[in-house]
């Protein structure tokens, strides 16, 4: 609210103020000077009365000046001006109601969502319009849509408005303005915008479209509907820390309200298990929402899939849950295939491997140790990683291994004296990163103590497999006296094998290959002390654990994971040729989707665990769908009135003229007070 003047030229009368000041300062100038023998008394009196007189004089002058100022202002015809949308609607003959149906309109006040209030008000305002006005209705939830075209039947349009429902989608005010501009077809109109004006940057993003509407003579008349208090707490991130033997889910909560809140937070796993904690979330400040992190320990065994974190927040329930991916945890086993059991446990091919996997007598992953013939016991539903060490002939089990890996399983192949290149190449060509060639000795036979060729310290940061060793490793102490050489293979290209470790001289030590959604690792030496000293080196156990964690953590029984936002398109890569693909909502309903040879695309309409599966119900991919993050920010953004006032200031002003007689009367009162004050001063 500010004050403007209809006749600002009258302010020139303010010169009178200066005259008044001068007159006040120059009043009753003494014309004569006389000797005075009682100056002492005069000084004493002046000192005693000076303060009172000065205050009185200033008050007197202030009263006079104020009175004159009021008279001058009265002549200038002041009026109150307030930046506000025009009060009357329908003057252009075309009115478009834009109703924000986004998630943030679920904000509650008194238990009721503001969306319900906005819907009711919009319908009432439509019904109140004159019969000659053409109306239309546009929704501003992503994507914006025209739900009622031009009609003179405002009551019909109001009924449509009352039937609209809110979605868990983002706000698309810009799309709504574009739709409105399309409807107006270059003619002026009034756009009644029912929105909560929540979230940063929404109005700014619409500035260009707003300017075009204003150029047409249109105006956006905001009908702001939002709770009086800004309150909302929502989970904004949830991530499972990888590890075969369980781990933690780190949940980040954000609070957009001004005050700290303690909310009940629950993590619900796909198998129905849940963990609850009370989390204190600080209030928002100028830098952004207050955030708090909480870690939830996942049980040692948990089914993989899409889990949820939920908070108990009554202020905006629609964003209270967040879906996130959870790999299968702990429930399956590592299958270790011992190709050379040996005469005693310590001579077993996998003696060291078994202890490296479960160093504390069961604290590590559950390990099933079987001979080569036991590969037939491979159960893709249980086993997640297979170590095949020094297996002579994998031929009989190759199909099951290939299927296991393609479905996301992890396979580690280790060499040994039993390995025959020809048989392996013939049986496992679809799995081997590169065809095997022949074993090669890397030591000087003349020197009995020659440890062989050392491993090169890898660029650990460049390899996901070896990332934990980026802070330092002792690979250089690992020596091999013999390795299996490989046929030359390309290391460039999208599906090219990766070589995370090499022996000195360049021979590959560890080669990785992606097969389907699973992974195969080929260790070109042995996992026991046959060809290398690796098992007795300090790096052995952490390396085995890391390989297991990575391979096992990825294997959750599905072929892909994806994330999505409600209302936004999600694309999922398909594993090879799949005949029939279905997309199922969290409720299990099949939804339309588009697909080509290798992808399927769909638009989720609700948050939760969406799945892509074949006609048999086999899930190819889990999609964790969440609500649009900006919708959780319920803090008031820039106002539409201010935005339009910046573009066309004269459109967004309401005026209240102030009666001149009131100013004159005020001046009269002040002058009277000044006159009375003058009399009293003379008395003193």
């Amino acid at each position: 609210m500010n004050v403007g003047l209809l006749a600002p030229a009258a302010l020139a009368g303010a010169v009178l103020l200066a005259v008044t000041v001068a007159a006040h300062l120059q009043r009753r100038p003494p014309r004569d000077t006389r000797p005075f023998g009682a100056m002492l008394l005069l000084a004493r009196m002046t000192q005693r009365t000076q303060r009172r007189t000065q205050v009185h004089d200033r008050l007197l002058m202030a009263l006079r000046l104020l009175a004159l100022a009021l008279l001058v202002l009265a002549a200038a015809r002041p009026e109150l001006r307030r930046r506000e949308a025009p009060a009357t609607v329908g003057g252009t003959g075309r009115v478009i109601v834009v109703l924000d149906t986004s998630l943030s309109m679920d904000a509650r006040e008194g238990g009721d969502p503001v969306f319900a209030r906005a819907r009711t008000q919009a319908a009432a305002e439509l019904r109140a319009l004159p019969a000659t006005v053409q109306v239309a209705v546009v929704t501003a939830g992503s994507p914006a849509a025209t739900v009622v075209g031009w009609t003179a039947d405002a009551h019909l349009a109001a009924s449509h408005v009352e039937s609209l429902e809110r979605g868990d989608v983002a706000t698309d005010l810009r799309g709504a303005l574009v739709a409105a501009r399309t409807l107006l077809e270059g003619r002026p109109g009034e756009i009644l915008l029912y929105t909560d004006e929540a979230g940063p940057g929404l109005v700014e993003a619409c500035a260009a479209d707003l300017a075009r509407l204003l150029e047409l003579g249109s105006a956006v008349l905001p009908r702001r509907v939002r709770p009086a208090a800004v309150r909302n707490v929502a989970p904004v991130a949830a991530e499972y820390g990888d590890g075969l033997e369980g781990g933690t889910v780190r949940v980040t909560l954000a609070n957009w309200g001004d005050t700290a809140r303690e909310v009940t937070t629950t993590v619900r796993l796909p198998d129905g298990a849940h963990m609850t904690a009370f989390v204190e979330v600080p209030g928002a400040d100028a830098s952004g929402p207050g955030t708090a992190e909480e870690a939830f320990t996942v049980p040692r065994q948990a089914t993989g899939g899409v889990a949820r974190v939920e908070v108990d927040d009554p202020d905006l329930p629609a964003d209270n849950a967040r879906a996130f991916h959870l790999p299968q945890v702990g429930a399956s086993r590592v299958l270790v295939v011992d190709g050379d059991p040996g005469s005693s446990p310590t001579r077993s091919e996998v003696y060291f491997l078994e202890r490296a996997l479960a160093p504390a007598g069961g604290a590590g992953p559950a390990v099933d140790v079987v001979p080569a013939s036991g590969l037939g016991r491979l159960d893709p539903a249980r086993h997640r990683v297979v170590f095949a060490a020094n297996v002579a002939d994998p031929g009989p089990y190759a199909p099951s291994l290939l299927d296991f890996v393609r479905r996301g399983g992890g396979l580690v192949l280790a060499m040994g004296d039993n390995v025959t290149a020809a048989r392996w190449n013939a049986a496992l060509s679809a799995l081997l990163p590169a065809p095997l060639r022949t074993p090669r000795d890397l030591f000087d036979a003349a020197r009995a103590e020659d440890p062989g060729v050392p491993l090169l310290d890898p660029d650990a940061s460049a390899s996901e497999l070896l990332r934990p060793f980026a802070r330092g490793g002792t690979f250089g102490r690992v020596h091999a006296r013999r390795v299996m050489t490989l046929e030359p293979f390309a290391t460039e290209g999208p599906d090219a094998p990766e070589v995370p470790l090499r022996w000195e001289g360049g021979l590959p030590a560890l080669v990785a290959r992606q097969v389907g959604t699973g992974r195969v690792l080929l260790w070109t030496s042995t996992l026991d002390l046959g060809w290398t000293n690796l098992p007795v080196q300090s790096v052995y156990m952490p390396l085995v654990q890391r390989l297991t964690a990575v391979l096992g953590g990825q294997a959750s029984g599905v072929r892909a994971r994806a994330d999505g936002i409600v209302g936004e398109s999600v694309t999922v890569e398909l594993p090879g040729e799949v005949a029939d693909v279905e997309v199922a909502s969290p409720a299990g309903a099949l939804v339309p989707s588009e697909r080509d040879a290798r992808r399927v695309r769909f638009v989720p309409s609700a948050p939760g665990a969406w799945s892509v599966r074949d006609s048999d119900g086999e899930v190819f991919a889990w999609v964790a769908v969440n609500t649009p993050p900006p919708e959780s920010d319920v803090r008031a953004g820039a106002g539409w009135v201010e935005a339009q006032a910046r573009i066309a200031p004269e459109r967004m002003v309401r005026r209240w003229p102030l009666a001149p007689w009131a100013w004159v009367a005020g001046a009269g009162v002040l002058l009277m007070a000044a006159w009375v004050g003058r009399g009293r001063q003379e008395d003193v």
Partner: protein
Amino acid sequence: MSLPPPTLPGTGDPRVLARARMLHLRARQAVAGLHHGAHASVRLGHDAEFVDHAPYQPGDALRDVDWRVLGRSDRLVVRRRRAERVLSGTVVLDASADLGSTPGKWDHAVGLAATLAWFLHTVGEPVGLEVAAGEGVAVRRLPARGGSRHAALVLRTLAAVRPAGRASLDGTFRAIGGRLGARSLVAVVGDFMEEPDEWRAAVHALVRNRVDLRALHVTDPEELGLAFDAPLRVRSPESGEERPLDPDAARTPFAAEVQRWRGEVRSALRAARGVVLDAPVGAPLVDLLAAFAWGGGGHPLRNASPAGRSA
């Protein structure tokens, strides 16, 4: 009594002589008015030796009643005494410039000082003069002496002095106190236009020496009443300071200030056992002289004959 010729350098100015004669005349008239019907001289001495008894009359001090005579003869008589030594009197004239702010105020002050000096002379007391500030005279201090020639010298000095400068009452009182002996009479004629706190201590010191202090507070009612027609600027003759003055607006608070200041002056002097006599311009000299002679006690002529009485 005719005035002797001037004996001091610089007193040959005819205007001064004329003024001195006029002062003499006024003083004689006032003193004569005071003595009308008394037929005797007045002595103001405090200490006196016994002479004889006289019948008691109402108004006589009880301390003069001779109780032994009353016990023996049942007659009520008072003891009459003769002064044992001469009481010297010193007239102090404040000749600061403020006294000259109005002609009437200065004339009144000088006339009053001359009257007091002549009165002391006529009652046979040695008289001295102390001029504080002022100009026109080479000698500001005349020690107390008897004789007509000295009295005439005092009058001529008073006639010659003109108001000027600033008189420090504090310094004046201290200087007098250092010179006068005990049981002296000091008559101060001035406007006392200084903060009483500045000279209060000096007055106390003076009175501790048993000096009989009698102050004649000279004021000009018109000046203190701000009898001006219009706003004006007033200038202090002493400091030259100027101030605007709206007499209409200031009259009431100024009167209150005057009243307050009078009270302070009286309080300071009376606290030192001094006698304060208001001497506004226009007040008859004879009345002022009478009040001075009474000294705040009984009439000085009642018991004066033949040898005066103690005040």
